[in-house]
């Protein structure tokens, strides 16, 4: 059974189509990387998958049921969304921000319980940022905000987490922290789909990759098999080579530069 499946999905806006004919399936325990150049519609695709904006064609199935037939609380208990790090208008405490992830587990008229608070603190501790819980969300750094939004998604206790460029505003250490955490979540049985601008992340962490370009799928499948230098160079419009390091990691490097070694 797939947690999330898209069939022939068209996304965008009524008079402004962004993408078409996207098929993807995500199982529990999988990490899917969504790659694609700027403006190719990664965020729009995510919002369509989450049912936040209406789809233009095709279907989205959550737990094998059409997302349109499910109420928002149900969807939120299956899929959590980590938007790109942003600021809020009002200075909520970090703890309260994470606590908002518990909303789908409580009735419309109820407030979070002690149990919810414990879950929120545990989510912060999991990412090593529990000391931030009393700080104002508006006063912490962009990278910390990103971690807080991830903690909020963890507190949501969903089966699947959709992350929109979770590493974009993080330093190198925090990128590794977040991606290692993603891998642990997948090992624990969660599905994760995340977008990134760094194909190396797909090689290192993803079980599958989905490369978007010109409004539709350019490659999909096992990263090492489908992310060939030819495909990457074409989609990103720059000469790219894929190299295998002695440690076994695959990395993308630009080609055609005057050799670095000679300089």
């Amino acid at each position: 059974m797939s947690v999330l499946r898209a069939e022939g999905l068209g996304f965008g806006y009524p008079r402004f189509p962004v993408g078409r004919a996207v098929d993807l399936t995500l199982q529990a325990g999988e990490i899917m990387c969504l790659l694609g150049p700027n403006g190719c519609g990664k965020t729009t695709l995510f919002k369509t998958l989450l049912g936040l904006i209406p789809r233009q064609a095709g279907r989205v199935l959550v737990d094998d049921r059409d997302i349109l037939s499910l109420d928002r609380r149900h969807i939120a208990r299956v899929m959590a969304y980590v938007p790109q790090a942003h600021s809020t208008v009002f200075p909520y405490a970090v703890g309260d921000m994470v606590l908002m992830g518990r909303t789908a587990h409580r009735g419309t008229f109820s407030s979070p319980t002690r149990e919810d608070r414990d879950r929120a603190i545990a989510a912060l501790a999991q990412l090593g940022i529990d000391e931030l819980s009393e700080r104002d969300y508006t006063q912490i750094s962009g990278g910390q905000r990103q971690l807080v939004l991830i903690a909020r998604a963890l507190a949501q206790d969903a089966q699947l987490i959709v992350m929109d460029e979770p590493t974009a505003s993080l330093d190198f250490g925090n990128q590794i922290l977040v991606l290692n955490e993603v891998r642990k979540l997948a090992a624990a049985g969660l599905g994760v789909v995340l977008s990134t601008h760094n194909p190396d992340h797909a090689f290192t962490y993803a079980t599958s990759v989905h490369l978007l370009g010109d409004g539709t799928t350019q490659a999909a499948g096992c990263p090492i098999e489908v992310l060939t230098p030819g495909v990457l160079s074409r989609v990103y419009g720059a000469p790219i080579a894929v190299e295998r390091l002695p440690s076994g990691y695959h990395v993308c490097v630009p080609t055609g530069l005057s050799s670095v070694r000679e300089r």
Partner: protein
Amino acid sequence: MAAGLLLLALLAITIGPYPVSVVQVLDALLEYAGGSAGETDAQLETVLFSVRIPRVLAALLVGAALAAAGTVYQGLFRNPLVSPDILGVSTGAGLGAAVGILMSMPVVVTQGFAFAGGLGTVALVYAVATAVRGHDPMLVLVLAGVVLGALAGACISLVKILADPYDQLPAITFWLLGSLAGTQPGDVWSVLPFVAIGLVPLVLLRWQMNLMTLGDEEATALGTDPRRLRVLLVAAATLMTASVVAISGVVGWVGLVMPHIARLVVGPNFDRLLPAAMIMGAGFLLIVDTIARTMATTETPLGILTAFVGAPVFLWLLATGRRSW
């Protein structure tokens, strides 16, 4: 804070052209509660129960309701510069009252007109915004509010021109500036149920209200239904505003400034923000109204005083330069 407010109310009752001591007030109240009459002298009783206490209660109610509505509106519109009038409640109520005065209606009918005018304007704004599709719904709502508010303002001007300049015009002007001078003993009780009904959804949805400030997409992803909640919350806040404005006239600034100050003190979590804003709003309007009735021999309109107090406070808030509110 609530205890401080009670003390403030007690002090406000003692202040006025007919001097009363705190002890006398407490005596009279105890007697009133005990049901035995006659001990207190009649003049004191009239001053307390027909004039001061109704007026103090009205000030508390109006202040609390306007501050609560302002807190909700600011959260829903995700904008700390929003006041309860953003969707045209007060202007609509002003038009209703002006028409009532023009038609020489009794006070109660004029209040009813004001109430209906306020609710009707917001309902119209909401209907227009729902009919217009394909834009950011909040933006359309605000713009519809501005446009219809301006239209109602023009209608008020028209009514002013038609009004009798010696009798009706001053009444309209005074009403538009807000005042509790005409408070009748029954006013508070006729308005209280509406305020209470409006308050129920705000209390029940206090946690959801926090999510609403994150924007529709995030609130939806977290498992709420922002569109439906927004209708309910706007209706509740509008009901509260329209009902108190019907007895006080247009009182600006309370709904704009009080939520800010409350937020500075207790933070933005609606759970604590709502009661804090209501207590502060009630206290603020009580102080301002006490000044309004004692500062000069004639009544000073509330709208003028709240602006004189509110504008500097607001500018100070802007200048202290906290990027987040």
